[in-house]
């Protein structure tokens, strides 16, 4: 009988080992791999929006009209959500009252796929929509692996391009570095 009770207690303990769901702070991370975390992207968005707001293009006379272009994904992550990053920057900039964003849905599909060399088309669209700047970016990652460890370097760079001249009027970047190594138990 004692034996059965022991087993019963152990089984209950095993079931109880699973922690219940807990609320985490927004800036707390459960780092399990070397991918960028939501907190990183949030911090980058805040940094970029502050940088744009402080730049020389920021004018208090009239809000500047900006259009999102795309963030080129050159990371290792094929599920990288660049739109989320841009929308966070947008939120921060709109809050500063100096910027106005044009809904990308109003644009022809072509604008989403324009590359940097399509300047003439961009100018045309800019004139049509009264756009001041295009906001574009690039997420880049490179890695080194050695002895079971993996070091990953990330660079998230953004730039504002003058819609009329094609000149880059502002650019900034944010960098992160991660190191991950398989636990010895998993080697």
């Amino acid at each position, binding site marked *: 009988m*004692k034996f059965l009770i*022991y087993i019963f207690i152990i089984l209950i303990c095993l079931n109880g080992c699973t922690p219940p769901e807990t609320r985490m702070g927004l800036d707390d991370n459960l780092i*399990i791999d070397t991918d960028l975390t939501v907190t990183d992207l949030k911090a980058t968005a805040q940094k970029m929006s502050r940088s744009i707001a402080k730049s020389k293009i920021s004018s208090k006379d009239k809000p500047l009209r900006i259009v999102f272009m795309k963030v080129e994904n*050159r*990371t290792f*992550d*094929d599920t990288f959500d660049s739109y989320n990053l841009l929308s966070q920057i947008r939120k921060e900039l709109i809050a500063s009252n100096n910027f106005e964003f044009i809904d990308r849905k109003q644009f022809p599909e072509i604008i989403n796929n324009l590359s940097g060399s399509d300047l003439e088309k961009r100018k045309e669209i800019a004139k049509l929509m009264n756009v001041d700047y295009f906001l574009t970016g690039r997420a880049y990652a490179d890695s080194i*692996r050695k002895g079971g460890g993996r070091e990953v370097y990330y660079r998230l760079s953004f730039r504002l391009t003058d819609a009329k001249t094609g000149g880059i009027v502002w650019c900034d970047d944010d960098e992160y570095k991660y190191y991950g190594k398989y636990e010895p138990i*998993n080697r």
Partner: protein
Amino acid sequence: MINKILIILILFLLAGCAAQIPKEAEDAFYMNDFGKAAKLSRPCADKLNRNFALNNAKLGQFYFTGGGYDLAFLPFLNAGKVMERTVTGSDNAFWSSVSREDFKEFKGEPFERSMCHWYRGIIHYRRGDYEKALAAFRRGIDADKDTMSLNKDDTSDFSAGYVMAARCNYLLGEPDTADTYIQKSKFVNEIEEKIDDTDEEEVVVNDENNDNYENKRNGIDSDNTIFIVEWGDSPLKQRENNIKDIWSCSAFAEYIPRSSKIEYAKIFVDGNEKIQINRCTSTFCQLSCNTEKTAETIQKIKIGAKWTVRVCAFAGAFTGVLIATKGNGAAATAAGIGAALVAGAAVRTEADVRVWDLLPEDIGVGSLDIEPGFHNIAVCFYSSSNAELPEWRQVYYYYPIKKDDNLIYCRTTFDHFGKYKFETEEVSSSIVDSQISSRHYLEIDPVDEESDIRIIPLAPAFWKENEVDNLTIF
């Protein structure tokens, strides 16, 4: 004391319960019954256990080979995430240190990780999302960097990944980066010989200008059709010297090749021989050349620890039983020996032989510029003595070639039960009708009702929700 020993043994048993994809599912896969394979394996793949990554990788492959690219994406993503995760997600990981090695979470060898990303890259590529495809191919290359087969710590020899990453870079308008990938790829050392007569001149030019990047690209940058051909079966993994005895020290695993007769493939377009596709990546080389020293050292330490635990368990159980029975008589000694044997057997030292064994043996990548329109495309396979192996021939009748970009993926694995993916001979509609009715292929509406043209999607259209890519028209 006996009770406690029994409890420990029960815990061992509990820790050992984690289902793998059943053999019936793999058999169904080899018999082209992708639906059955997926149905049988899905319950296993859904369970969060230490085999989660392996089960999902296999499920993804069932979908992928059957043309269910959208369905395959999530299992491959799940598997890739777990394999790349540096921390363990399994509560049983501790037991792998003192008992069976396969109690730990399956994370695969570097090349298995690569293949998860490789297939995801192909899925993105087929969707025309070259940016995501590039990310996945780059990750595949990155995951394979530990292999050190090139005597460089930080270099991958996953040349198929390099070629496809280069292709994506070219399509994204980044030729400089693409050239770097081409340079890294072993593919440039095995430049496929353009054997079409009209290209003879070009082959000579290539040989003379070997240092010129334009030629090293070998059409990967400009051709409108990419061929990815996979053949054979990846190696099996077994305990060293195939020792199955639980008392042995068979703590290391070895890979057993399952070499197919196929040495290379040739592509025929409308009956004309166009290109030869050589082996670009070999799974046997990839899997068996993982010479990562740290992992080997850790394995040796683990084995030492396990043997220590085993001896302690053996001695502890023996002493415990003797104390419990107060050492009275031969029966007590026999009980002690019995308990010791059971406790010793519970601490096992066998190597982890889990492997993603549904992968191909070789991967070849080639490119070709084909006039847009419908073409009969045949992929023929040859032995090392240059004899054609007609049983493997795959023919895509009236394949629709687009102007800009096409990806033709071809996999031959299906020799296990004497059945093949496609028929070898020129087919008449009645023969194909009978074949189709006996298999699970789906018919779709004819493209042109006025003519006699009828489109019948073959295996890749097995999953309804996908656009067909292999078509037969009569």
